[in-house]
């Protein structure tokens, strides 16, 4: 089951450069929340704060609170947090030295699971959820790099799902893919939301409109507006949101 997120006064910096200015936002569980906005608006930084990947960059820091089902993530261990909050990146990044199978179970294996039968079950389950099982079940031993771009990205999704997170963060997961592969990822996202809370960053507004239950618009490191996707696109309250979705800038 998914978990809800509650962001309180989140601020983030790269060195002396402040990229998020006090974000407050509620993210409902088992929904798809899309983050849209022009490049450099802080949307990537925002989701990288949710699993504290932001902290791993040199000179980067964040303050404020993010509550995951009520518990502040900044009070706990980031490594553990990342097993609960999975992430899929902009470009597919399977581990080049590992087979398809090893890629999927990497998170489990490297966190200590040795039981081969359990690993196999987990691999099949995750690949099924990522809608990749049928395409790769006969070549699990092949390198992950032998797959097409779209398949690699679904492999990365399977890899993230295998550690059984409750939240899945997706940072423009389809931006490096062709339209057909994009469509498959979008279908997958809508299927997955019954079990996960999904936060997806996208620069593609049609994509947000197609798959997201709620949409948040970021501009210059601020959350301008957050609401039901239909409201954001049909009846935006803020002039800046309207300008953006009607294509007047960005």
């Amino acid at each position, binding site marked *: 089951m998914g978990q809800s997120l509650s962001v309180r006064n989140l601020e983030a910096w790269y060195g002396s450069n402040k990229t998020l200015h006090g974000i407050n936002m509620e993210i409902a569980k088992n929904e798809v929340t899309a983050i849209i906005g022009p490049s450099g608006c802080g949307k990537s930084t925002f989701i990288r704060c949710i699993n504290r990947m932001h902290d791993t960059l040199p000179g980067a820091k964040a303050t404020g609170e993010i509550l995951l089902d009520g518990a502040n993530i900044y009070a706990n*261990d980031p*490594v*553990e947090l990342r097993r609960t909050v999975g992430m899929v990146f902009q470009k597919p990044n399977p581990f080049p030295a590992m087979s398809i199978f090893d890629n999927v179970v990497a998170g489990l294996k490297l*966190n*200590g699971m040795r039981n081969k039968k359990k690993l196999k079950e987990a691999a099949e389950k995750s690949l099924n959820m990522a809608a990749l099982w049928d395409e790769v079940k006969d070549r699990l031993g092949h390198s992950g790099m032998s797959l097409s771009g779209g398949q690699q990205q679904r492999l990365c999704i399977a890899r993230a799902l295998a550690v059984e997170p409750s939240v899945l963060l997706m940072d423009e997961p389809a931006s490096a893919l062709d339209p057909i592969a994009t469509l498959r990822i979008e279908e997958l996202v809508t299927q997955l939301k019954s079990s996960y809370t999904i936060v997806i960053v996208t620069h593609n507004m049609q994509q947000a409109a197609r798959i997201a239950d709620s949409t948040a618009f970021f501009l210059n490191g601020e959350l301008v507006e957050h609401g039901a996707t239909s409201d954001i696109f049909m009846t935006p309250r803020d002039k800046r949101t309207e300008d953006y979705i009607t294509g007047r800038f960005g």
Partner: protein
Amino acid sequence: MNKQDKVRTRTAIGDLTLRLLTLGMALVVVGLMIWIGWQMYVSSQESIAKFGWSFLTNRVWDPVKENFGALPFIYGTLVSSLIALALAGPIGVGVAIFLNEMASRKVRSVISFLVELLAAIPSVVYGLWAIFILAPMLRNSVEPWLNKHLGFIPLFQGSPVGLGMLAGGLILAIMILPTIAAISREVMAAVPNTQREAALALGATKWEMIRIAVLAYSKSGILGGVMLGLGRALGETMAVTMVIGNRPDILPSLFAPAYSMAAVIANEFTEATYSLYLSSLVEIGLILFAITLVLNALARLLVWSVSRGPKGGQLV
């Protein structure tokens, strides 16, 4: 402790261990450097105390009379290395230009592989080849020819011996050529293509383009490469020991036998029967260490400053 805490502790311990372990190994490098300098310094104390600065200017090396001076070795090392530099410098840079600016991809990969092989041949094999092939060739044809046509210069006077300063310089030239070629190519490859295009667009010929855009841009890096080559020549031991003649004299003729710092250490170290003798040999090593250290440090700074990226190269 519950399971979660255990996992957390294990992660923390693992992270700390790897960080400290790798840091420790990185420090090994600095430690080695200091250790090398310190060992050399301590072990040469006896000689330093006895001879002081005169060690550097004394021309006599006489283990029987316990009189030690490093000058013949310093002279031999410098002259043989300068011969090497005079030959390998231009040729090495020429190779680099050919590879980087003229050769097709295929030719380039074949020839750079061959030049790398030249660097891979062990020093002792060069020495063997020089004793039996290069030195007889020098004695029988090159030196007589030089003597006949350039004999009015003291450098080319005297009877052709084969094993001597010239042979040492030549074999060093062969050995440092790959270093000079490789580093020069590396810094030339760092010249942005826009520079070349700009020169060509001004109507420059290929050579003019190389001169204005490539060489002007990379000259300090090339100088660094040449200095690294020089550093290698100064410290090269086996091949030189085998052909330089091993006589601690300072003679004007390049045909005559000479001696180098590394060679005297290689030859006499295990035969040094008393501590002052050994200490004097170590002091020669210390001098060699100091020279190559400074030279390498300067050369690396030059190469780094170029290949780390453009900082507004100017047209000369």
